């Protein structure tokens, strides 16, 4: 237990440092971007038919939400606010807390990502075990090549295909949004069903684009575990096949936690593609919009949130590892 706490403390310190670095990096990077929120808003208003004067007036307020002072002052101010979990105000939805903006989207993205991970993990590991056990047969080869291909096919291609198939050719899934607005919100059947049906295609896109990498990792992991002595030992002790498979699977799963952490970052990044393709209002859409509107606070908050998600995933993966692997949990060394 103490071991675990020490690990956790170390993680937290590193996480904070990393968040600071990313916060700093993005802060300055974002300020290098050409364009400013006022100009972007002004043009939009004028195109919506507002007169130039009116548009100028309407955008004047936005200036009030832009940081002032030297770059350094802005940075210090920004860090100071970060310490209070204040991510600043959005300039796109003027005056609204950037963190609220991002969290609204993040909620949906996290749901999708988790669903995607769950499906791809289940699919990938099961197929990975099969591919490993049947590795010298055609089934194994086919699975491996399929895994590699799916691993390579990116999310947006997957999304395009799914959209074309399931909303145009065979329209069984809704095309956009996260829930049917007409359904009363709350924990009731139709609402949950609506949530699920809206999430299914994007989640599937995630899953299909991810399971290949789980499959490949699981395959090589199982192959390596199959070579471990204890597997043969279990056979020679007369353990049943199911029991042995369970031994193998549990040991083979360990390396997947590391991959899992990497995947999280990848999936949150991929949210931009998936959400854009399915018009699913998550963090990716928030990010695209905030970039388009040069909404600095929201951009910063999005970056930090994704970073935090990756870091948390890493920590979770490590803790899972610790929980499952007694070699880590109960001190690092053997007695002799």
């Amino acid at each position: 237990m103490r071991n675990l706490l020490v690990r956790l403390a170390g993680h937290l310190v590193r996480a904070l440092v990393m968040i600071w670095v990313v916060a700093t990096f993005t802060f300055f990077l974002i300020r290098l971007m050409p364009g400013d929120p006022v100009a972007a808003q002004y043009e939009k208003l004028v195109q919506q038919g507002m007169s130039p004067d009116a548009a100028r007036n309407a955008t004047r307020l936005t200036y009030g939400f832009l940081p002032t002072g030297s770059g350094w002052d802005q940075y210090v101010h920004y860090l100071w606010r970060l310490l209070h979990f204040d991510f600043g105000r959005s300039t796109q939805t003027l005056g609204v807390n950037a963190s609220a903006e991002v969290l609204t989207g993040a909620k949906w993205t996290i749901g999708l990502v988790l669903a995607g991970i769950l499906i791809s993990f289940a699919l990938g590991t099961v197929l990975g075990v099969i591919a490993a056990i049947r590795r010298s047969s055609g089934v194994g080869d086919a699975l491996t090549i399929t895994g590699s291909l799916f691993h390579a096919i990116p999310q947006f291609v997957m999304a395009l295909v799914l959209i074309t198939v399931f909303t145009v050719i065979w329209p069984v899934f809704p095309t956009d949004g996260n829930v049917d607005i007409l359904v009363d919100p709350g924990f009731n059947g139709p609402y949950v069903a609506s949530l699920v049906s809206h999430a299914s295609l994007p989640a599937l896109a995630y899953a299909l684009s991810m399971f290949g990498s789980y499959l490949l990792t699981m395959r090589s992991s199982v192959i390596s575990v199959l070579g471990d002595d204890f597997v043969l030992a279990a056979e020679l002790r007369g353990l049943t096949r199911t029991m042995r498979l369970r031994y193998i699977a549990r040991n083979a799963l360990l390396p997947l936690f590391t991959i899992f952490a990497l995947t999280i970052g990848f999936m949150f990044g991929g949210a931009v593609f998936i959400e854009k393709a399915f018009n699913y209002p998550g963090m990716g859409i928030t990010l695209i919009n905030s970039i388009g509107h040069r909404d600095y606070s929201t951009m910063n908050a999005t970056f930090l949130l994704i970073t935090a998600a990756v870091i948390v995933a890493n920590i979770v993966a490590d803790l899972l590892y610790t929980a499952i692997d007694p070699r880590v949990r109960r001190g690092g060394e053997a007695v002799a």
Partner: protein
Amino acid sequence: MVTAVEIPTGNTPALTPARRGFWRNLWRVLRRKPTRVAGAVIVALFVVMGVVGPFLYPANLPTDPGNAYAGPSGSHLLGTDFQGTDVLALLVTGSRYVLVAAVIAAACTVVVGTGIGLYAGYRRGGPDSVLMRITDFIITIPGLPLLLVLSTLWKYSNPLTMGLVLGVTGWGSVARAVRSQTLSLRERGFIEAARGLGLSTAHVVRKELLPNVAPYVAMNLLISVTVYIYLEVGLFFLGVLPFNENNWGVMISQAVQNGVTQTGQGLAYLLSPLVAILLLTLGIVLLVDAMDEVFNPRLRED
């Protein structure tokens, strides 16, 4: 494994000439499986397309707005685009930007990733900590969002910048993997022996460590190419990259924006670059399988 039987990989472990040319060796390994040959042929085809292809067409491709979104026909094998330009011509002339950028990015990733991974893993201690923190940063910072922001900063007027930017943001996981491989190789006696013999760090890294991580590096190089092609094309798909030259990403982006997925009109325009990418991916996937054997003399034997 308990099985103490040493299973030979071939009929006779007699002399394998050691210093056989790399290419001959490659060919030998490829020949073992038809899938590998297929992969190599596909990849070679695309290389030729990227290198030679653009010279076959005029700098400015002819347009024919009256014949936009045409389906495949005798005069336009893969149909036409939104202003009646031949899709095949676009595909061929557009391959160079995409491929060059992806190869540069992959090379960048592999060179930086391997370099840092090897150095950090071999050196350990201070340099390792510093480099790994940088690597963590590269891994942690969300890549695609970063590219979205960078795409407003850079003009990506040529594949070189495109490739460099992609590569610079993507080397983290390679570095980490190479480092952990290096750490485990470091425990192997031959590294210790090389140091004991007074061989320089440069020598140890280049001659002892590098050949042992080579299969991994080669696989990554190949796979990175596909990853970067997709990333590039994905950015074009998102519409965040300016299109300054013909390339596949622009084709997909234009086709999708023109509603090909909805109307089916100009399907060939959308599918051509997609299929090209998938084919290249398949080629690379099939080829990757051979890398272990190419670089590992132990597996290479007949």
